[in-house]
């Protein structure tokens, strides 16, 4: 068997703190040792084997099955390997991850990819709030890596993002890219209200529609075809994001801001006219 399979034994209704489910912790362990990894279930520590049926020895490639809506911190801080989740995943999925890849068939909770520094997080469903953002009190959110969401993302996606790429196939909630320091946020659906509020640098690219107008603290620059978008859109196309030929050949309106801060950020709006 090439992957270690963890099958949820039952519906996990209590919160589970599963930061031990990472390739870094599991790779190389015997099957028994994998089952003995500690997990916080509700308010008590339990061996992982009590909650998950473990198949095979520990590998760098993990497969998680079952409804993991209440399982938090899967893949937290991982640096290598892969995690494939067949079902929903809970809060803080892949937070602080630095390498490897996590794929999720369905939806994920809030704070997925928070403080992510590398690797790739691929979500085929919807993402909760604070995707790729910063924990309260922290100066920087995501500092590297790629987050791809086929569905929509809730509020504050990419807040305080410093580097990296987030692409959302659907729409976003309020304050997408708020307080961005740098990096790139692509939204193919509806870009939520107050996009880029407080952003210093970085790029927010709207390829669909706007929930509301651009904030008044952004100023119109010009209409043009940015060369760098060709690189990003082709990259996203390779990963199955809904890039169209019109996106590749189109013109974009550039707004710069937020002038409440440094004012060197940009919102690029695909011009459909």
């Amino acid at each position, binding site marked *: 068997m090439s992957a270690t399979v963890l099958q949820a034994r039952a519906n996990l209704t209590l919160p589970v703190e599963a930061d031990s489910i990472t390739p870094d912790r599991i790779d190389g362990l015997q099957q028994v040792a994998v089952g003995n990894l500690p997990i916080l279930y509700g308010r008590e520590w339990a061996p992982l084997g009590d909650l998950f049926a473990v198949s095979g020895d520990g590998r760098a490639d993990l497969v998680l099955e079952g409804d993991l809506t209440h399982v938090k911190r899967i893949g937290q801080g991982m640096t290598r390997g892969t995690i494939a989740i067949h079902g929903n995943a809970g809060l803080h999925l892949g937070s602080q991850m630095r390498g490897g890849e996590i794929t999720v068939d369905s939806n994920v909770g809030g704070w997925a990819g928070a403080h992510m520094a590398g690797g790739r997080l691929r979500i085929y469903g919807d993402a909760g709030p604070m995707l790729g953002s910063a924990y309260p009190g922290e100066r920087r959110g995501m500092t*590297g890596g790629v987050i791809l969401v086929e569905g929509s993302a809730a509020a504050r996606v990419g807040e305080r993002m410093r*580097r*990296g*790429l987030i692409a959302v196939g659907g729409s976003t909630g309020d304050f997408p890219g708020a307080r961005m320091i*740098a990096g*790139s946020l692509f939204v193919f659906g509806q870009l939520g209200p107050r996009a880029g509020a407080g952003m210093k*640098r970085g*790029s927010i690219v709207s390829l669909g529609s706007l929930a509301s107008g651009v904030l008044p603290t952004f100023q119109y620059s*010009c209409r*043009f*075809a*940015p*060369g*760098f978008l*060709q*690189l*990003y859109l*082709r*990259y996203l196309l390779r990963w199955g994001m809904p890039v169209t030929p019109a996106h*590749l050949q189109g013109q974009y309106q550039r707004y710069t801001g937020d002038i409440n801060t440094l004012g*060197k950020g*940009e919102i690029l709006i695909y011009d459909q006219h």
Partner: protein
Amino acid sequence: MQIGGVEIEDTYAEAFHMWAARLVITAVNGQWAQTAAHATIGFATSIIGCGCEGGIERELASTETPDGRTGVSLLLMTRSREDMEKQLPLRVGQGVMTCATTACFNGLDSTETVSVGGNLRFFGDGFQISKLLDGRRFWRIPVMEGEFLVEDRFGIQRAVAGGNLLILGQTPEAALAAAEAAVSAIRKVNDVALPFPGGVARSGSKVGSRYKFLRASTNDAYCPTLRPLVKSALPEGVNCVLEIVIIGLTEMAIRSAMRVGAEAACRPGIVRISAGNYGGRLGKVLIGLQELWA
């Protein structure tokens, strides 16, 4: 040895190890990409006078470039890594950045790199924007047309320059036709470029001069007008010599280019195919002409 009645002289080309970079220039169409390419390597014929040698490697289809536009790949060679650090930003800055619609990308995957966009970004005067995608950093430099996109660092590797063929013809017309045929054939070889105008050099040089201030001077042994005045290398009936100089990423690529070039040049009106060398005193890569078919 003869090919098609043309003598292949038992001699060798003396080539040198150099540092190479490959530039990928894209533009709104092939014409503008070519314009930028020619501006970049137009004055890069000989390391002696230009600081580097460069040439167009090939045209690139839109499917082969990072930004999906048509482009051109160039090879540029310098004596040292330090020279490359000077020449690349200078030439990309003056030859590519100034040219309408262009972008410039690294085309060589190497652990050794030099900064290009990282230097040129300062032209943006603080308004430049960095983008990091898939491990590659790019700089968006605002210009009056919009933005100039250039990759941060370009790979460099050890390469070979100075592969050459001397085409000895009965008439200038025959020599030029043979040279053109050779150029056409060599341009189908991967990993090589021809730094001289049209791929052909008429003013081959020898090392040294009777003037102390000059490091290289005309290759008098191959000048038909000097036949009675010097120790001429020209056989009877030869009235014109043209040289094809080849730079390449590998010695193997140079050898392939020399072979197909020589074969193409063996045409009516050509007396001999030879090669330039300095007695083996300068270059470390000696490429025997007749070995090419061994």
